[in-house]
């Protein structure tokens, strides 16, 4: 059982390393970074307490929001999905990504207190 799981995982990693374009890997690295930051914030909240609750929420939502926006960017940029996003060029996706981030950061900074 575990054998097959390990083999599946190693196969997946191989495929990933070989067939994913570089751009997407860059975004995936970014996604990993965001996720780790969010997880560490959550860990802090669990361990130490929710004292400035608004700050915790703001930081956590920032991570979650950034993750979602990056995922959207990744989907839109992926050449394999080109058929579904005919009207949206990668540049347009990136511009949307930046704009959405601006709004997100505005709200986050407002709430962080």
């Amino acid at each position: 059982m575990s054998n097959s799981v390990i083999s599946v995982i190693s196969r997946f990693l191989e495929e990933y390393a070989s067939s994913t374009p570089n751009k997407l890997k860059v975004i995936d690295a970014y996604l990993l970074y965001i996720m780790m930051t969010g997880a560490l914030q959550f860990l802090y909240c669990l361990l130490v307490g929710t004292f400035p609750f608004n700050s915790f929420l703001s930081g956590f939502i920032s991570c979650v929001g950034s993750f979602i926006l990056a995922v959207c960017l990744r989907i839109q940029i992926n050449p394999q999905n080109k058929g579904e996003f005919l009207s949206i060029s990668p540049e347009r996706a990136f511009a949307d990504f930046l704009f959405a981030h601006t709004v997100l950061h505005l709200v986050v900074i407002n709430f962080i207190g």
Partner: protein
Amino acid sequence: MYPFEGLFSLLVLSLVLETQALTPTHHLTTTDVARLQAVLSQPFTDLKSAYYSVVGLSKLGISVADAATCRFIKSNLDPSSVESLFFAAEASQALPGCEIPVSNDTRDLLLATVSEDSTASQIHQSVSALSSLGLPLASQEVVSALKARISKEDNVLTIILALQTASRLSQQAELGEILEEIEDLAARLDDLGGVYLQFEEGLEATALFVSAAYALSDHVDMEPPLKEDQVIQLVNSIFSKKSWDSLSEAFSVASAAESLSNNRFHVPVIVSAQGPAAISHSQPFLRLQVTNVLCKPLSSASVLVESATATSSKSAILSQAPFTLRDGVFELNFMASQPASGYYQFSVAIAGDSRFVANHVELKVKVSTRVSINNMDLSVVDKDQSIGPKTTRVEYPAKAKASFMADSHQIFAMTFQLVDETTGVELTPHQTFVRLHNQKTGQEVVFVAEPDSKNLYKFELDTTERKTEFDSISGTYALYLMVGDATLENPILWNVADVVLKFLDEEAPSTIQAKTLYTPKPEIQHLFREPEKKPPTVVSNAFTALVLSPFLLLLILWFKLGANISNFTLSPSTVLFHIGHAAMLGLMYVYWTHLNMFQTLKYLAIIGSFTFLAGNRMLAQKAVKRLVDNLAAKLL
């Protein structure tokens, strides 16, 4: 549906009941009339105030026979002014032996003022002056001028002046239309709560309306279309104000009072009891003052008690008993009918003149009496009835010589009767209290003595039962009997005896503490909200570093992936875009530290639009480059 019908009929019924017997709630007393007279007697400064004073006082029945006044009027007269002529003419009319010289020019001026173009006030003044000076005038012309004036100006004061003017004209003139204005004006009065009826223009207008309406009605000998209740409501409005702001207001009140006392149709009657409406053996006469609105007694009236019923038993004591007039006051010896003490509802009718209005009055009369205490018996009874009671009789106001002892085996009892001193009828006053007062500790306990079915009062004190009221403090208590009632003339506080009470389980006698209601209470300290406990700085710093660490990981990963910045073209739009973007991030930091949302949005709009333009340019260039590369790759 049904509840609304019921409510509606109840409302109608209450309205009907209310309007049935309306009597004046406000009227002038003799002091008010004296005050009115004093206001009108103030020394006058000009012709107008002289007019108000002289004519006003004459309306109150006081004549000013003063040569100085006449000289003042003559010297202040301005023959070229209609108003001045009016004041002088009216004032001289009220002064005996004062004549104003009249020239042809004066007469012509006054006659010329009677036209449609003059104001109603001018017409009124010229007609009154002509009439007072004895000069002839053409009544029909006046009537047509007034009618034209009323149709042009429909306000209350104009119509009142028209009514006043019409009352000075000849009786042959056609005054019918002007007479109808009284009814129209009466409809414009505001009914306030069913008690007051007045114009929104104020007291003066209402008072002038009353005097004008009655003056005209008397002149044409036709009853004014005012109902009795309306007359009473007008009386309430006009005489509710007891001090007057101006001479003209005082004058209008005096005019109204005079017309309501002396007209041919409605004379409101004011009935008031002289002093409190209370009768006793020492004061057996019920005295009523029956006057008109000027506080002059109506000697032609005959006052009759239609019925006098006791409020408690509803039995009629008197029926159709007349009052006798003595020194201007109507009195009736009510005690002669030997009424029991209590309250009585009198229904009084004033007859004698068909003009009387509000001549049915309801009065509440109190009959008080003196009480005496009979058969006060004090005894100490053993609980198990083994020893017979020793009864001691005490006479008021003496005190029992020996004090009574009662401990836990005995009951202290008291019986007495309260009777009317003169008639011997048993009474049940509202307050019959027995008060026990401990002289040493200052404690007092009060009980109520209740009468039984034969009106014999009984009070029993069982020491075991009443332990809590006394706090089980034994000692000598002074016993007082308190009797009081609204209809008793001699309330009683009688120290009957001393009672020594012994309680079981006596606690150490503690002095009674005065109630600490009014001493300062302990101060309340306000606790401000404690700030929440913060984690130690070390922990937060450590975690801050930990949270920032994935950034390093990101940089390492990107480096490993070979993310290149070699495609970084140094075109202006790219540089500007990156600067703008960095500025936006910097703005976020500044927003966190210094700014508020509005300022941030303002700066963001500026930087954002700049960045957008630059970024648009840059991305367009990149897109072009990408497409070119794709094409090149395809072609190759």
